[in-house]
C-alpha cells in the first residue's frame, strides 16, 4: 500500500514539476522572428532565387554547355546554344521553371563558368503560375555575383574574336606537331 501511495505521490510531483518548468518559459524571450517586419539574416550561401551573372568585362558568362540542365533533378532548366560572330557561345534562350525548381543548387555546382548562381533572395511567390517561368532577361544581372575575377574565356583555350589560340592566361603557345624542334 505504501508503495502504491509513493507511486501516486511521485506521479503528482512530476506533473507539478513540469507545470513549474513550463511556467518559467513565460519569462523567456520569444524565439519568433516577425518576418515581414523584421527581415531575417540570410546567409550568403543560402540557396534561393537563381541568377545568371556576367564576367568582369560585362559579357554573359553562360556558355550554353547544358551541364546545369543535365544536373537538374527536376528538369526545370531548358536552354538553347547559339554563337556570336566572334565564336563565343551563349544561350539563345535560357528558361527556368521556378514552379518546379527545388533550389537544390546542383546547377550551380555543375556550372563550369560560375554563370548560374543561387542568391539569398527567397520571396518568389506569384499569383499566376505562368509568372513562375523566368526567361534569361529576368535572371541575367549586371554583376559578377559571388566570383568577382573569374572570366572563363580568359583562361580557356578556345579561340574567340580578339583572342587566338595560346593567348589565354597560363596557356603556352600551341605546339607545332609537324616540327621536331623543341
Amino acid at each position, binding site marked *: 500500500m505504501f508503495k502504491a501511495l509513493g507511486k*501516486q505521490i511521485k506521479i503528482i510531483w512530476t*506533473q507539478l514539476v*513540469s*507545470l513549474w*518548468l*513550463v*511556467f518559467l*518559459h*513565460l519569462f*523567456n*524571450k*520569444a*524565439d*519568433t522572428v*516577425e518576418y515581414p517586419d523584421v527581415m531575417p539574416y540570410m546567409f550568403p550561401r543560402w540557396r534561393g532565387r537563381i541568377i545568371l551573372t556576367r564576367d568582369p568585362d560585362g559579357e554573359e558568362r553562360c556558355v550554353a554547355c547544358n551541364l546545369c540542365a543535365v544536373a537538374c533533378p527536376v528538369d526545370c532548366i531548358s536552354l538553347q546554344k547559339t554563337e556570336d560572330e566572334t565564336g563565343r557561345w551563349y544561350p539563345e534562350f535560357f528558361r527556368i521553371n521556378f514552379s518546379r525548381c527545388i533550389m537544390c543548387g546542383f546547377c550551380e555546382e555543375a556550372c563550369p563558368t560560375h554563370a548560374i548562381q543561387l542568391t539569398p533572395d527567397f520571396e518568389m511567390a506569384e499569383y499566376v503560375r505562368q509568372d513562375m517561368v523566368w526567361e534569361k532577361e529576368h535572371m541575367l544581372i549586371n554583376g559578377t555575383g559571388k566570383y568577382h575575377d573569374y572570366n572563363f574565356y580568359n583562361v580557356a583555350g578556345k579561340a574567340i574574336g580578339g583572342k587566338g589560340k595560346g593567348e589565354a592566361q597560363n596557356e603556352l603557345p600551341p605546339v607545332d606537331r609537324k616540327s621536331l624542334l623543341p
Partner: protein
Amino acid sequence: MFSFEVGSLLNIALVLVAGLVISIMMIWVERRFLGFFSDRLGPNRVGPFGIFQVIADAVKMLAKEDWIPPFSDKFTFVIAPMILPIVMLMSLGVIPFAPGVGVMDLNIGLLWIFAMAGLASYSTMLGGLASNNKFALLGALRGAGQMISYEVFMGISILGIVVLSDSFNLREIVEAQEDGWFVIPQFFGFVVFMVAGIAESHRWPFDLPEGEAEIISGYNTEYSGMKFGLFMIGEYIGMVVMSAIIPVLFFGGWLAPFGLEFGNEIISGLFWMGAKTSFFLLFFVLVRAALVRPRYDQLMSYGWLVMLPLSLINLLITGAVVLYQAG
C-alpha cells in the same frame, strides 16, 4: 428592474455579455499564452496585441460551408452542438459573482451545476453518434467513458464543502467562508475537484473525446462552420464556469483576501471574483501547455482507484471532524 439584485434584467444582460465575451476572448488569450509558454509570440497581427484575432476567426468560421453529412442523423446532428453552450450558459447563471450580482439564486445551486455538467456530456455523445463516423463514434465513446470516470468523484469531492457550509446554495457557501477559505480544510477536495473540473470541461490534458492525434478530432470530426464553433464556444464557456466555480467553492468567491476590500462591496466583489477567476483561467492554459494527455484507461483507473478513495476519505474525515466539533 435595473438594479443590482439577483435576477434583474441588468444582471442578466451583464452576466450573459460578460460571460460570452470573456469566453470568446479566452480563445485569443489561450493562444497568446500558449505561445508565451512555448517561447513564441502567439497571434499578434490583428489589431493591438492581436485582440481582434477572435473576430477574424469568427468571420472565417461563419463564412465556411456549413455541411451536414448526408449519411448522418440530421436532426440529432443539428441539435447536438446547441446543447453544450446552452447548458454551460445555464450553469453560468447560478454563479455568484458579487453580492447581488448573478442571474439565479437557487438553493440547490451546486446540484444545478452538476446537473448541467451532466447534460453537457450529451452534446459530446449525441454529436459523435449522429455523425455516423468511426472516429466520431470513438470520440463519443471516450466522452462517455470519461464522464463515468470523473462525475462520481467530482460530486463526492464537493460534499465536504456542503458539510462545512451546511448548504447547497453557492451564495451561502461563499458567506460561510468569511472566517477562512475552504481550500485549507478541504485541500484534498480542492485537488480532486480541480482534476475533475479540467476533465469536466474536456480541456487538456483530459481532451480524450477530441484526441486529435489519434482520432482526428473525435466527436466533432464531421462538424464544420458555426456548428463546430458552437462546440468550441461551449467548451470555452465551460472553462470560464469551472474557473469561476473553483474560487466560489474553495477561495472565498467575492470575499477579499487579507481584508483588502475597497469601495462598494459590489465593485470590490466583482474585482476579487474576476481576479480569482482569471488566475484559474490562466492556470487552465498552463495545464494545457504543460501536461500530456493520459491514455483512456489510465484516466479511468486513476479516477476510480485514486481519486474516488481520496475524495471518500476526505469526506469521511470532514464529517468526523464536524461531528466531533458539534459535540
